[in-house]
């Protein structure tokens, strides 16, 4: 299979990459989401801007409040990073489930978050922890935005900022088979800012669950009954469109969402 024709640019700096941005352009980082879409012609950019030779985007930096990852930090690089293991244990736990080791060698953390694909685990973690993408604009401005928000055509994500967690965490998912096609997953993390919960697969995008976080906090380190978790999850998703597709019904996803939160909470209790 061959993609539709496009032009290709290989900038060396973020400034050069930003200068190339225009409607119809597409950023390429790891390419593990984009290239399969290109060959299926599901996307047809007229310009592909390859970031892979941009200097300075491959670092994982721990600041006083955040773990900052550049747009070229590979999934496997993040999984094996001792700094990530110490400060973002929930991310390390989840990365084992992302795609497979060969894809993880190329795919990037920021690319995974920007693609925000159905069946990706990291958006659930990002929602749970309140991670933010650092956005650079052509006119020199920078801003932060949450995963799932549309990135303007004159801007690109250069980094992701994960609030440092340390502490205990849990991550569980139900998938059609290991490392393939996650149906529902849940992340629970107990950091300095309190307890946070994220669920993916119940709604159309990653969902932070403040009500569940309150419930888990009130019973921590114990774990609430499944029925209480299910009722609370229902309150967290109130007003949102539930996800329902050929892989699983909305009812199943809601039930399994509560169960995954329960299992993640047990995992978190176990690693206190």
């Amino acid at each position, binding site marked *: *299979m*061959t*993609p*539709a*024709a*496009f*032009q*290709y640019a*290989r900038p060396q700096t973020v400034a050069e990459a930003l200068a190339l941005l225009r409607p119809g352009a597409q950023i*390429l980082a790891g*390419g*593990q989401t984009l*290239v*399969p879409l*290109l*060959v*299926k012609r599901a996307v047809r950019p007229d310009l*592909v801007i*390859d970031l*892979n030779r941009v200097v300075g985007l491959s670092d994982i930096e721990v600041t006083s409040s955040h773990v900052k990852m550049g747009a070229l930090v590979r999934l496997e690089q993040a999984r094996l990073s001792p700094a990530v293991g110490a400060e973002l244990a929930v991310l390390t736990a989840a990365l084992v489930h992302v795609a*497979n*080791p*060969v*894809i993880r*060698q*190329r795919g990037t953390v920021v690319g995974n978050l920007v693609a925000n694909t159905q069946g990706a685990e990291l958006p659930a973690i990002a929602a749970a922890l309140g991670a933010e993408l650092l956005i650079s604009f052509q006119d020199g401005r920078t801003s932060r935005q949450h995963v799932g928000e549309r990135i303007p055509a004159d801007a690109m994500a250069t980094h992701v900022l994960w609030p440092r967690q340390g502490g205990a965490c849990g991550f569980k998912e139900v998938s059609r*088979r*290991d*490392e*393939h096609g996650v149906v529902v997953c849940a992340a629970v993390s107990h950091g300095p800012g309190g307890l946070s919960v994220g669920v993916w697969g119940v709604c159309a995008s990653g969902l932070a669950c403040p009500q569940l976080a309150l419930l888990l906090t009130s019973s921590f380190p114990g774990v609430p009954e499944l029925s209480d978790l299910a009722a609370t999850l229902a309150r967290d998703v109130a007003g949102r469109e539930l996800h329902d597709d050929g892989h699983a019904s909305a009812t199943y996803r809601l039930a399994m969402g509560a169960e995954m939160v329960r299992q993640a909470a047990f995992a978190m209790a176990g690693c206190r």
Partner: protein
Amino acid sequence: MDIAVQVDGRQVEASVRPRMVLSDFLRCHSGALGVHIGCGQGVCGACTVVMDGVPVRACTILAVQADQATVQTVASQALLEGFTGEGLTPLQAAFREHHALQCGFCTPGLLVATSVFLRDNQSPTHEEILAHLNHHLCRCTGYANIIAAITSVLP
């Protein structure tokens, strides 16, 4: 766009369109017919090659991205295994001994990926071998013989 890629120790220079994927480049421009194209979406593992020391799916990388890179296919299997003898490498011999292939379509990707897997983890557990094979589709063997072959080369 003009690119230069070192493929199995040979410098290959070609002018390619940006939309060409690496797996097509390896087969069409460098004669690396050991790179098999299965799903074309990074799922089946048949096109796995080693690029600058890292295993990658050649179908999910554009050929232009490999400019100035070093690529090793199954033709470099002896090098990948660090084997300096004559004939089949230990892994190839084990695959033959244990009937770990039938049609052979998945085999080049499996050999390349397994050599890197064993380079990074010299004593994998049975579960780790299963997890490794989870990312390679083989429709013939049912995997049992592939597991036996890999297990047989462990120290």
